[in-house]
């Protein structure tokens, strides 16, 4: 399109690709994990992997907020959405995530008042516009979106909005990464670190990866050039036998993170003892709930929910995809029983999910000629 800014310049892309080709050891295979779903999406959307040499492989990681929501939480959300007098709000892609019986979109078609919002503030505005209804916001995301939920809750409290509630599904990025590094079935050479999360938490929380596991991390932006440059920085570390956290995304990420955001989060949220991740099982201290000071806004304390753990469908291999153990197309139901229009797993629903990104953008064997 005519809007091609400096971070999408094809010419610079080719230059970087050339530098990567010059930096790699042709005898070696490099397996780099992009932690964040936003990276996965960019990689497929811009065809970034087309510019990488054959021996540099990108593996998709667990950082897609919608993908990690387990079925039981969807069921709980639907139970709240069906409660009397409730307007249930969530982000658009969440509406299509399958629960054990149905999705929120299907619950809406059956009469539940489910509405799409673009931010927690939109939901709060809806609550103020409908004082005689209860407005519930289904909050999800990593540390990226948690501060805006926290600020919204603070505002609701300050303004005394008594018909606004939050069903909190916020998760944190470090525990799943640790779980992943502890699992024996994955050999990774380095990490393309999550840029957006790091704007909040900074780069320090990732220092355990080089320190304890001996793998380089480069915090990366989301434009295609950012990703290429980060790949180059990791390869340079590997070839230079260095191993550290580097920050490619300095134009946005301060090494210390955003202290103000962390403060607000600490006030509004507390760590859950454990939380179920889709396909990954229970991970302790990996998610947030509203703190006691915000108990009156907590939808989970206000509404009856089934609160049961629902096993993932047998065919579903989202866990393996989220851990990068298998490629999306290696799942047995990929593209046949599981498609974006009838998803079995979450990774096929969110545009940041590896299965959806591969299906929608990458489903094309590149060695097949276009004639």
């Amino acid at each position, binding site marked *: 399109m005519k809007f091609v800014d400096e971070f999408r310049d094809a010419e610079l892309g080719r230059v970087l690709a050339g530098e990567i080709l010059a930096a790699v050891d042709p005898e070696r295979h490099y397996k780099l994990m992009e932690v964040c779903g936003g990276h996965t999406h960019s990689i497929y959307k811009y065809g970034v992997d087309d510019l990488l040499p054959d021996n540099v492989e990108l593996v998709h990681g667990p950082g897609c907020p919608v993908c990690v929501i387990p079925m039981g939480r969807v069921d709980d959300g639907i139970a709240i959405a069906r409660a009397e007098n409730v307007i249930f709000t969530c982000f658009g892609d969440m509406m299509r995530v399958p629960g054990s019986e149905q999705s929120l979109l299907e619950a809406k078609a059956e009469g539940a008042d489910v509405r799409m919002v673009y931010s927690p503030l939109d939901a709060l505005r809806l609550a103020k516009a409908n004082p005689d209804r209860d407005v519930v916001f289904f909050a999800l995301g990593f540390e990226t979106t948690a501060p805006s939920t926290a600020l919204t809750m603070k505002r609701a409290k300050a303004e005394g909005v008594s018909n606004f509630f939050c069903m909190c599904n916020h998760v944190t990025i470090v525990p799943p990464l640790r779980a992943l590094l502890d699992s024996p079935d994955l050999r990774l050479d380095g990490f393309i670190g999550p840029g957006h999360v790091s704007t909040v938490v900074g780069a320090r929380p990732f220092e355990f990866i080089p320190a304890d596991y001996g793998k380089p991390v480069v915090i990366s932006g989301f434009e295609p050039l950012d990703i290429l440059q980060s790949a180059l920085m990791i390869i340079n570390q590997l070839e230079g036998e260095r191993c550290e956290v580097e920050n490619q995304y300095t134009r946005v990420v301060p090494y210390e993170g955003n202290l103000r955001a962390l403060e607000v989060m600490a006030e509004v949220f507390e760590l859950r003892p454990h939380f179920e991740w889709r396909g990954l099982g229970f991970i302790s201290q990996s998610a947030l709930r509203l703190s006691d000071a915000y108990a009156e806004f907590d939808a989970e304390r206000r509404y009856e929910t089934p609160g049961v753990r629902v096993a993932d469908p047998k065919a579903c291999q989202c866990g393996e995809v989220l851990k990068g153990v298998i490629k999306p197309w290696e799942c047995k139901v990929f593209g046949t029983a599981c*498609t974006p229009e009838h998803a079995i797993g979450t990774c096929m629903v969110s545009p940041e999910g590896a299965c959806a990104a591969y299906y929608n*953008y990458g489903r094309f064997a590149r060695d097949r000629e276009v004639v």
Partner: protein
Amino acid sequence: MSEGLVSGREQRILEIIETTRSKRPRFKDSQVTMSHGAGGKATQTLIEGLFAPAFASESLDQMGDAGVVEIEGLRLALTTDSFVVKPIRFPGGSIGDLAVNGTVNDLAVAGARPAALSLSLILEEGLDAEELRAEVRAIAAAAEVAGVEVITGDTKVVERGHADKMYICTTGVGQIDPRARLSTAAIEPGDKIIVSGSIGAHGTAIMLARGEFELDADIESDTCSLWPAADALLEAGGAGLRCMRDATRGGVATVLNELARASQVTMVVREADVPVDAAVMGASELLGIDPMYVANEGKLVAFVAPGQADGALAALRSVPGCEEAAEIGEVKTEPPGMVLVETAFGGRRVMDLLAGDPLPRIC
């Protein structure tokens, strides 16, 4: 994955998926959801899996924007469209403009000069008479510009809350132009893909007009009659003009996908050549949507044989409102039924139908 990494196994799985996709979809959902009206895959499933088999019509199976009926040697194009846009007035137009232009454009891209319209109104109890008057004026004005007459109509009123202000349904009829040799199945490898101007304005304008985002941008709907553009293409393209499509709901991406399937060809789009207004591009970046999927109400996509493409493009650009028309890609043979994008960044990817549009009631 880069070239050498596509293993035989991956290739086989991709082939299985393509076979699955090329089968006629079956409508298996237990209820209608908003996705079925969004113009993406769910809509396609509804049409191809439920409607088309039930009515077994050759003309319907063509899946054109208008159907063709022949009466004693006279070839007529017939089309119908309902309008439920919210809000009913938005920058650049209103539901009345859409109701005329939407139907006129379905005729125009079928190669038919619009002749007459019917007009059905479904009004909500309590609708402000001034709002109704304004829409009637808009309809009359748009019809005059488009050169069609409203010759019959109907009115129903439903209880408050059972409609949202007003819904409009128009049906249009026109005679197929003798110059037209159009068919959805006529597209051939080598043909050039042309759009009649910068894309994505209508859908973006509606989203912003709903006021759900704290985002202000100067974006107006592009609603207008496409007959002048179609007329210019028919004249300049001659028999080389294979097919035209009105890129409404689901945008240019959806049109390309439907036609790639219908003609069993590949469409390759050069992303860098697609005209998008800077304000539209900026807004869609912020909203996380791709302008290729955003609705237009006054843009067509044309497929022209290579020999006539330059002439057709020049003719199109001389039509007022089509100055930004551009050739955005080319038709290829393999892999059939697919749309591929050469990204501005130098990579390549698939551009599929959307599973479900998050933006309902856009027209």
